[in-house]
């Protein structure tokens, strides 16, 4: 088990290094235009431009830039934002709590409601309840996040004027973004937990538990729930990148002051140091979430632990 984890951490670290390298070369080297161009006033002289390039270290050979970047990166220095002149890492970390609040709530809501509906649907299979659950899940999977967000904003923000549709503030600011962001996950977890639960409920050990006279609710909650959670947990790791995409969309629509919003503005402003930090941060999150998933998996399934 420990060896398994060590292996995963090592691989995660390697992956990070590769991601840093890829992102560096893609943005710095293959970039089409001079990033400094849009920072300068239109009447700037070539000398001004040179000075600016030197300031950001863009006048050195590529490989030298790369090694310098790597060296600094390992010390926690990811350069300064072209646009704001502040350290890129700080700029991103400032925005992080807002994003975690939004994404975390959305994940929690989607996962808990999805599991709940999915299990009910499986246990009361082929009843009206199941039908409703399945139809809702189908629609939830089919509506794009940005469309849902706009529809909700239109109905509750514009027409009924019940809820704010932009910015971060009290709980009322959270409602629309969280709901529109969690819907896809909710639908997906509902479908997955339903099918996985049905499969588990058909297995021999469930019959065996019932033969022993265990009440059905206990069979579902103790025997079936733990077993059917295993694929759902794996699925969280697999869909985490989709959560990030959703986060960018929702933050853009609701002007949420988070990382997703920052990355969109930075990309159009060619603020590469910031983009790089965000890419690294997101990759880091994907890798750690997957590690977390592996640990949870091993906790749920002793077969992994005793491997």
């Amino acid at each position, binding site marked *: 088990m420990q*060896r398994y984890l*060590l*292996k995963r951490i*090592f691989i995660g670290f390697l992956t990070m290094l590769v991601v840093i390298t890829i992102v560096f070369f893609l943005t710095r080297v293959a970039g089409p235009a001079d990033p400094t161009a849009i920072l300068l006033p239109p009447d700037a002289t070539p000398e001004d431009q040179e000075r600016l390039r030197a300031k950001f270290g863009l006048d050195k050979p590529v490989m030298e830039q790369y090694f310098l970047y790597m060296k600094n990166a390992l010390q926690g220095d990811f350069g300064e934002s072209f646009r704001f002149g502040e350290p890129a890492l700080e700029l991103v970390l400032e925005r992080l709590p807002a994003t975690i609040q939004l994404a975390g709530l959305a994940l929690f809501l989607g996962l808990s409601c999805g599991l709940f509906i999915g299990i009910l649907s499986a246990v009361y299979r082929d009843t009206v309840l199941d039908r409703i659950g399945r139809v809702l899940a189908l629609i939830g999977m089919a509506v794009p996040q940005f469309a849902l967000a706009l529809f909700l904003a239109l109905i509750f923000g514009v027409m009924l004027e019940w809820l704010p549709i932009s910015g971060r503030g009290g709980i009322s600011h959270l409602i629309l973004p969280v709901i529109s962001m969690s819907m896809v996950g909710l639908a997906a977890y509902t479908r997955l937990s339903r099918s996985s639960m049905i499969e588990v409920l058909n297995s021999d050990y469930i019959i065996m538990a019932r033969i022993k006279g265990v009440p059905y609710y206990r069979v579902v909650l103790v025997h079936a729930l733990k077993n059917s959670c295993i694929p759902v947990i794996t699925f969280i790791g697999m869909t985490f990148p989709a959560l990030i995409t959703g986060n960018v969309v929702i933050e853009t629509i609701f002007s949420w002051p988070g990382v997703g919003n920052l990355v969109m503005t930075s990309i159009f402003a060619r603020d590469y140091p910031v983009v790089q930090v965000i890419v690294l941060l997101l990759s880091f999150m994907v890798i750690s979430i997957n590690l977390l998933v592996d640990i949870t998996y091993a906790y749920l399934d002793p077969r992994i632990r005793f491997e």
Partner: protein
Amino acid sequence: MNNQGGIQVKNLTKHFPITSGVIFSRTIGVVKAVERLSFSIERGKTFGLVGESGCGKSTTVNMILGLEKPTSGDIYIDGENIIGLKRKKIFDLRRKIQAVFQDPFRSLNPRKKVKQIISEPLLVHKIGTKKQRHERVLELMDLVGLKPDAADHYPHEFSGGQRQRIAIARALSLNPEMIILDEPVSALDVSIQAQIINLLVDIQQKLKVTYIVISHDLAVVEHISDKIGVMYLGQLVELASVKDLYNNPLHPYTQALLASVPIADPENIRESVLEGEIPSPLNPPSGCYFHPRCNKMQPECKKGKKVLHESSPGHFTSCPLFA
């Protein structure tokens, strides 16, 4: 041993390494799946290999079929050693050995029609024209008792017994000298088992093929074999003709095995004689692997390697009590 056809297996051994490591794997142990297995059988006869799960039966099958490479040892077919042959030679050799496996539901490709399944070996070996192959398929189907209109159907339309007939027809398509039957009837219903066993016996009489039957069902093996080997934890513990083995089993494991088989006769109630379970092949006992469960255990059983020796003509056992 004579070299006139048939198969000779000499000191066949297969070890599987167990590896471990965070980044670079290293070997921390060895599972001796098959150890120094030797037997021979003449052309047209049947050799039965009996043993419980984990005794190395399927590894042996894989090695004879060329699907796995033995760690050491030789297999002679028609006097030719098939271990270490070139690719081309192995391909030619395929014509001589075919196989029928246990589960008729997993041994036929569900996406192919019966005629495609039966004729595939012919196609791969580029034998005959399309028309000739089709005729051959019909001939084979007749031989195994399938109606000709079955040729255009898919396997899922057949029951277990009929699927096993299809599998046998395919195995026969290249006119092999030998067929490995790996638990050929254990997945079938009782009333169907007898059909398939009779069919196999008929085919052997007609075509003079050699069979190697692998099974855990001693009654079935007794019924069709001429010679039987009993395996325990990767080793042959007894090797004898059917008559000798059943009338005069020497090795205590063979005796226990025979005594454990339930008999369909209420007048003949058996008592279980064997206590305990099969040890892990990862960490087998010292000396004779059977000694912890043996009721005739002597101090010398715990020491040294036990090899097969002839205790009476044609009757081999590894039990030190008969040395």
